[in-house]
C-alpha cells in the first residue's frame, strides 16, 4: 500500500504538478516582466495607438506560444494526431481534451499580463489620449484657435510628463483614462474567472463519464510512450552487451588459435574447464598488441547487427 502510494505520488507529481508549477512560474515571470519593462510612450499621433495596443496584445501572444513550447504534452498530442490508424482507432475526444488542457494552462500567463497592463493604465493612456475631449478637464481656452492637427498633436503629448506643460489638465485626463482602463481590467478578470467557474463547476454535471474516459486514455498514451522508450533502452542495452561479448569471443578465438601454435599443448585442456574467474574475463586477450588489434577492429570493421543463436 505504501509502495503504491509513493509510486502514485511520483507519477502524479511528475506530470501534473510539474505542469502547474511551470504555469505558476510563467505567471509570476509575466508580472515581473511588466514591472521591469520601461514603458515609453512615443507621444506622437501616428504611433501612440500602435504602441499602446501593441503592448497590450503582443506580449500575451508571446507568452501563449511559450506556454505551448514549454509544455511536454504538445509533442504527445502532435504524435497522436499524426499517427496512422493501424490496428488502433483514433479518438477525437482525446485529442480535444489534450488540446484543451494544454491551452488552459498556456492562457494563464497572458491573462496575468493583460490584467496587470489594464490595471496600470499606462497603455490605455498612451493609446487613447488623442480621443479625449479636453473641454471637460479644464478651460477650453487651451485649444481655442488651434487647427485639428495641432490639437491632436497636443493631445498626443499628454502621456509624456515632460512634454505637456499643463499639469492639472494632464493629471485629470490621466485619472479619467486610468479609471476606464481599470474598469476594463476588472471586467476582463471577472469574465475569465466566470468562464473558468462555468467550465470547472458546471461541466461535470453533463459529461462526467465521458470526461473520465478521455482523462484515462490521454494519461495512458503518455505512460505507454514512456514504457516503450524504457523497453527499447533495455533492449538496446542487452543487444549491445551480447554483441560486444560475441565480438570479444570471436577475436579471442582468433587470438587463442594464434597463440596456441606458439605455446604448449597443455593449455588446450584448460579451455573446457573454464570457470568464472578473472582469467575468463580477459577473454583471452593478454598482450598490448592484441588489445590494440581489438580496438582497431572495433572501429574499422564493426560486426553485423545479427546476434547468432547459440545452439
Amino acid at each position: 500500500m505504501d509502495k503504491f502510494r509513493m509510486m502514485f505520488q511520483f507519477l502524479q507529481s511528475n506530470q501534473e504538478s510539474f505542469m502547474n508549477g511551470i504555469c505558476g512560474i510563467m505567471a509570476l515571470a509575466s508580472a515581473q516582466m511588466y514591472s521591469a519593462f520601461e514603458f515609453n510612450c512615443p507621444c506622437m499621433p501616428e504611433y501612440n495607438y500602435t504602441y499602446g495596443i501593441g503592448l497590450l496584445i503582443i506580449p500575451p501572444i508571446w507568452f501563449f506560444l511559450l506556454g505551448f513550447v514549454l509544455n511536454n504534452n504538445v509533442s504527445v498530442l502532435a504524435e497522436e494526431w499524426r499517427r496512422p490508424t493501424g490496428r488502433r482507432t483514433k479518438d477525437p475526444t482525446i485529442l480535444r481534451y489534450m488540446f484543451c488542457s494544454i491551452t488552459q494552462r498556456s492562457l494563464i500567463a497572458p491573462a496575468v499580463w493583460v490584467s496587470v497592463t489594464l490595471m496600470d493604465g499606462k497603455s490605455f493612456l498612451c493609446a487613447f489620449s488623442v480621443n479625449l475631449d479636453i473641454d471637460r478637464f479644464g478651460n477650453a481656452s487651451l485649444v481655442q484657435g488651434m487647427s485639428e492637427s495641432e490639437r491632436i498633436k497636443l493631445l498626443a503629448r499628454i502621456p509624456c510628463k515632460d512634454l505637456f506643460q499643463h499639469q492639472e489638465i494632464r493629471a485629470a485626463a490621466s485619472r479619467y483614462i486610468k479609471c476606464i482602463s481599470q474598469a476594463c481590467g476588472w471586467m476582463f478578470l471577472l469574465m475569465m474567472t466566470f468562464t473558468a467557474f462555468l467550465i470547472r463547476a458546471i461541466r461535470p454535471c453533463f459529461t462526467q463519464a465521458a470526461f473520465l474516459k478521455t482523462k484515462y486514455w490521454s494519461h495512458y498514451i503518455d505512460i505507454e510512450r514512456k514504457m516503450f522508450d524504457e523497453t527499447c533502452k533495455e533492449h538496446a542495452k542487452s543487444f549491445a552487451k551480447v554483441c560486444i561479448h560475441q565480438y570479444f569471443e570471436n577475436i579471442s578465438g582468433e587470438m587463442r588459435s594464434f597463440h596456441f601454435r606458439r605455446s604448449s599443448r597443455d593449455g588446450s585442456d584448460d579451455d573446457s574447464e573454464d570457470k568464472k574467474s578473472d582469467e575468463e574475463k580477459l577473454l583471452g586477450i593478454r598482450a598490448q598488441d592484441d588489445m590494440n588489434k581489438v580496438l582497431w577492429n572495433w572501429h574499422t570493421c564493426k560486426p553485423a547487427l545479427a546476434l547468432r543463436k547459440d545452439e
Partner: protein
Amino acid sequence: MERLKLVLQYFQSNSESISNGICIILALVSVKLYTSFDFNCPCLPQYNKLYSLGVMTVPPIILFFLGVLVNRHTGLILCYSCRYLFSAMIQRALLAPMVWILVTLLDGKIFICAFSVSVDPALFQGMCKHTHYLNKYIVFLVKSTFWLGWSILLFLIVLGAMGRLIKPCFDDHATFLQTRYWSNYLDVEQKLFDETCVLHARDFARKCVVQFFEDMREDTVLYLPHPPFITNFREDWEEEEEERLHGITKQEQVDQLLNKWYYSKPELDVTRISHRPKTCVTWEDLIFDLVQCVLGVELDS
C-alpha cells in the same frame, strides 16, 4: 487493516486542513491585491460613485468565484448537492470577499471618493488635487468608515464565537458526525480512484508493449523450440539478456519493429498476456520432455 487506517487518517486530516489553508491563502491574496491596487478616483461627478461601487463589489465577486474554483470537488458538490459539503464550500469561499470589503472600509478611500460629490464642489476639487486641506466633513467620513469597518469585524467574530458555542445544543451531534464522515469519504474515494487508474494504465502499457514485442518475434522469426535441457552451458546473465531481447536480434527486425509501432499500433487488448500461465511451457516442450522421459535418452534439439 492498520495500514488502511493510517492512510485514511492521513487523507482525512489532510483534506480539511488543505481546504482551510487554501482559504487563508486566498484571504491574504485579497489583502495583498488591495494594497498593490492603485486606487484612482476619477474626480468627475458622473463617475465617482460608479467607480467606488465597482471597486467595492467586482473584486469580491471575482474572489468568491476563485474561492469556489480552488475547491477540488466543486463539480461533485454542485451536481450531487451534498448539503454539508456545499455549505462548507460556500463558507470558505466567502472569507476572501469579506476580507476585501473589510479592508476597503478600514481604509476609507472609497467612501471619500464616492460621497465627496455631495459636498461643496470646491472641497471636492481640493481632495482630488491632494492638498492637505481636510474639511471637517471629510474627516468625519474617514472616521466613520474606519469605525464601521471595525464594528463589522467585531460583529462577525462575536457571531462566529456564539455560533460555535450554541450549535451543539441545537444540532444532533450524531448526524453531524455522520455527514462529516461521508463528506471526507467522497474526498478519499476520488483520490484512490485516480491513484488506481494511474497504476492500472501503467500496467496496461507495460503489458501492451511486451505483447507487441512478442508478436513481432512470432511474425518475423521462426519459433525454434527451446528444450529445457540445454546442451551447452549458459551463464545466468546471458539467460536474462536473452529474455530481455524478446527474440529481436537483428537490425532489420528492430527497424521493422519501430516502423510497425508507428504505422500500426497494436489494439488495446492485453487479455492474451494477462491470462498466460506463469511458466512459459509450450506444447512442444511438454511433448519433448515426455519423449525423453519415456525413451530415457537425451535428444538433440
